Every structure is written in C-alpha cells, then in structure tokens.
C-alpha cells in the first residue's frame, strides 16, 4: 500500500472537505425541522436552537458523560459482537452450502421475531441491566452483517481464487488475500447501517428495560413531559450515530478501500478538483 506524506495530506484534505460538505446535509435537515416546529408548535417539536441549547445545558450536568459512555459501551459492544459474529457466520455460510442451510433460518428467525416475544427471555437471561441492551443490539445488527458477508463471499472473484490456489495458498490465506478485500465493501455497507441501528436500539432497550444510560435519561425526560430534553437527547443519539460512522467506520473504510480509487484519475472527474 502506498502511504507517503503527500497521500496522508491529500486524505486529510478530502476528509475535511467531506465533513464540510456533510454539514450541508445537516443544515437542510435543520431547516426542515424548523419548519415542522413552526407548523406543530413546541409541544410536538421544539425548535432546533432550543434543542441545542438544552443539549448544551445537559452536557454540563454531572453524570451526563457517564450516561453517554454507558450507552456508548453497550452500543459498541453490541455492534462489535454483531459485526463479528454476523460476519463470521455469513462468511462460513457463503463458503459452505451446508452451513448456509443451517444458519439462514436461524438468522431469519433472529431477524423476524418481534422483540416483545423474546424480551422476557432476554430479561431473564441478562437481567434488566446492560446485558439485555447489548443482546437487543446484537439481535438487531447481526442479521444485517450476516447478509452482507454471505453475499460478499458468494460474489468473490473465482478467477483470483484459482490464481491463489495455483500458488499454493491455503483456504485461510485465500480468504484473507482474495475474498476479504472484496468482502469488505459488502461489510462496510452493512456496518454503516448496523452502527446507527446499534445506538438507536441500545437507547430504546435502556428506555424499556430501565437500565440507565441515555435511554434512562430519555425515559425520565419523557415522564416529566420535558419535550426539549427529549429532543436534545435524540439529537445526541443521532450525533453519536453519525460520529461513530464518520469517525470510526468511514476512516477504516477509506483506508481499506483506497485501492479502489487507483487508476481513476484521468477518467473520473472529482467534484472538488478543478481541471488544471
């Protein structure tokens, strides 16, 4: 892999630019929100500025950081378990027809069972604490990861696989060198969704399971009919989801998929570059 100072600088520039461009989308969203606020009133939807002010207030409260950290740990633990198990199981299923037949119904089962049907079991197994929040996240995110890995392995390049075989590469090495780089784009598509889901589901599980964290704060705010605070916490969750995608997943993806941009300099016009 190429990695010189110039490359790093270019990457960083691109990254800053993309953050700046991303703000556009967020501002459009804020405008729509403001409009809805004016239509429905503050009881249904407080305006963005009030919400941000409330969020700033909240952030100074003691225990706020701990709550965010607690929820974050649950979301990320759940995500990592789901991403790991899902990708591993999906990979195995992609290689082996028999494994596919065994696992697919189990995954559809995990995917299709409405939460209320298993929440009682989860509560008994994991207690009404963090454990069941993590389990809920895993259940929500695992099938996404599984389906991505499955399809990624199934669509690997058999020609390259044969090449590696001809050079005596064992199954593990072939997986690592030939299938994985291809698989990654499927996995990143899945994981982008999964990490957002993880935050949302962790908060909902905390809220329902009475397990503290941001969800607990949300439950309290709601019980007090403090709608601005509810919105502020919602914004917090969305920001966390955005943050973990853009600060964790996307840089990883950039690094892993840098080869994809190779050879495109001449034929593809990049929107931020000016023709010299």
């Amino acid at each position: 892999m190429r990695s010189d100072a110039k490359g790093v600088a270019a990457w960083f520039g691109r990254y800053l630019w993309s953050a700046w461009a991303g703000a556009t989308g967020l501002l459009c969203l804020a405008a729509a929100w403001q409009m809805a606020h004016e239509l429905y009133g503050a009881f249904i939807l407080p305006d963005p500025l009030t919400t941000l002010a409330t969020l700033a207030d909240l952030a100074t409260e003691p225990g706020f950081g701990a709550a965010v950290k607690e929820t974050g740990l649950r979301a990320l633990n759940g995500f990592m378990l789901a991403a790991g198990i899902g990708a591993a199981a999906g990979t195995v299923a992609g290689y082996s027809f028999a494994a596919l037949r065994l696992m697919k119904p189990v995954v559809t089962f995990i995917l299709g069972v409405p939460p209320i049907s298993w929440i009682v079991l989860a509560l008994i197994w994991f207690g009404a604490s963090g454990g069941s929040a993590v389990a809920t996240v895993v259940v929500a995110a695992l099938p996404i990861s599984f389906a991505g890995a499955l399809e990624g392995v199934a669509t690997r390049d058999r020609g390259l696989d044969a090449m590696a075989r001809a050079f005596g590469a064992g199954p593990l090495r072939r997986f690592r060198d030939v299938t994985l780089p291809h698989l990654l784009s499927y996995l990143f598509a899945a994981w982008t969704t999964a990490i957002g889901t993880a935050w949302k589901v962790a908060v909902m599980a905390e809220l329902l399971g009475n397990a503290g964290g941001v969800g607990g704060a949300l439950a309290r705010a709601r019980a007090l009919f403090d709608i601005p605070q509810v919105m502020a916490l919602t914004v917090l969750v969305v920001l966390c989801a955005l943050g973990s995608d853009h600060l964790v997943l996307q840089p990883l993806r950039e690094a892993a998929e840098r080869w994809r941009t190779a050879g495109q300099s001449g034929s593809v016009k990049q929107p931020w570059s000016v023709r010299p």
Partner: protein
Amino acid sequence: MKLRLENVGHAFLGRTVIEGIDLALAAGEIVALVGPSGCGKTTLMHIAAGLVVPLRGRVHRAYRRHAMVFQEPRLLPWLTARDNIAYGLACAGTPRRHRREIAAVRAREVGLEADDLDKFPPELSGGMRQRAAVARALAVAPDVVFLDEPFSAVDAGLRRMMQDHLAQAAAREGFCALFVTHDLGEAARIADRLVVLSARRRGIIDLRAIPDRPGARDERFVFDLVAAWSCEEAFAEILDGAGRLQ
C-alpha cells in the same frame, strides 16, 4: 518425469473438449502447446495444474512447487505491482522483507521500472500487467511453471528478452515449463518439444521434439522451421483460418 497426464479427458456442460491426452514433462524441459483458439489448451493446462478436476484420467505430479501465468494477468487489484509480484512468495511463506527484494529483482527481469512497482493494477499498462504476472510466477522458483500465452501483450524486443530469459532459467534452474502460445515462431525458438492440439479431433494430433537447444537457435533456423511446419497437415487447423469461417 515431473508431471504426467494419463488419458485425461474433460467436458464442460456435457460437451467434450479434450479426450485421451497423454503427456509428460521431464525436468528442465520446455514444452510448447499450440492449437487453434478454443481447442482446450487453457483447459488442459488448468487440469495439469490441478485447478480443474478432469472428468476422466489422472494427473501425476512429482515436484514440490509449481507456478502459473494465466491467460489474463489475474493480479489482485488491492495490491501494488510489487506486492502482486511477491504474492507467490507470500503464499510460500517467504518473509516480507526478503520477498520484496526478490520482487524487485524479478520486476527488473521483465522490464518493469522501480516506480511502476508502486502502481496498482489499473494504473499499469496491459503489457505491464502481463509482465507482472510472469514475474510473479518466476519469483517463486518453481519446479514446474505453466504459462498461458505469457508474452502476447508485450512488444517484440521485450518478448525476445523474456523468451531467452525463460529458456536460460529453465536450463539453469532445471525447472520445466508447459507453455501455450499462438506464435509458432515463439514455440520454435524456445521449446524443446511441441504439442499440437486439435479442436476437431479433441486431442493431441502431433507431438515432436524440436532439434537443437532452445535459446541457441538463430533467426534463420526458426524462420525455416516455421515455414516447413506451414506445409504440414498437423498445423493446417492452426494456420487455416478460412476453413473455420462459414
């Protein structure tokens, strides 16, 4: 005998491609495989390399390691030229540092320059990709090397250099090579033996030794040999295009 094919036959989707192939490769020997397009040369080579399981017959291998140049370059798009050339070595477990050195040497042998080595496959020219694939195969110091039209996309000068290089390396390092080509002159220059496949008869229709040592034959000799072959029945299918167009 390093490699021996015994009564090998194969069919795709019920359509027989090759039948009753018997072929053996001795150490240090270069065997050229020629035949009309679509006659099963690639298939036969894949069977010999163990990439395709033949429907009939057996393949006996008595060597440690083989390498292959496919008809397409088959470089890994996520690796640079350097890492692609070193890939065979990586599979063989050579330490990273060492294999990068070997890769650089092999790259020079096929005319790739130092700054080409940091390019990804889509940034290489077609000929460079093919040369990288050749370098990758020779880098592993194989006992048997399979080459499927390895020089088809390189220019005349480099092609000659690479042919000579192959012939010398085979003689020096004692590996044997099975190589497919559409260029009879190429076969006449560097092969010890020539195998002619037929599409119509679905098998080997001619198998001959070429006089003299490969690499030591001069232009004149090669030209005359090819001219002589042109009149033979065995080569009619290859050289007669008109007979195959309706």
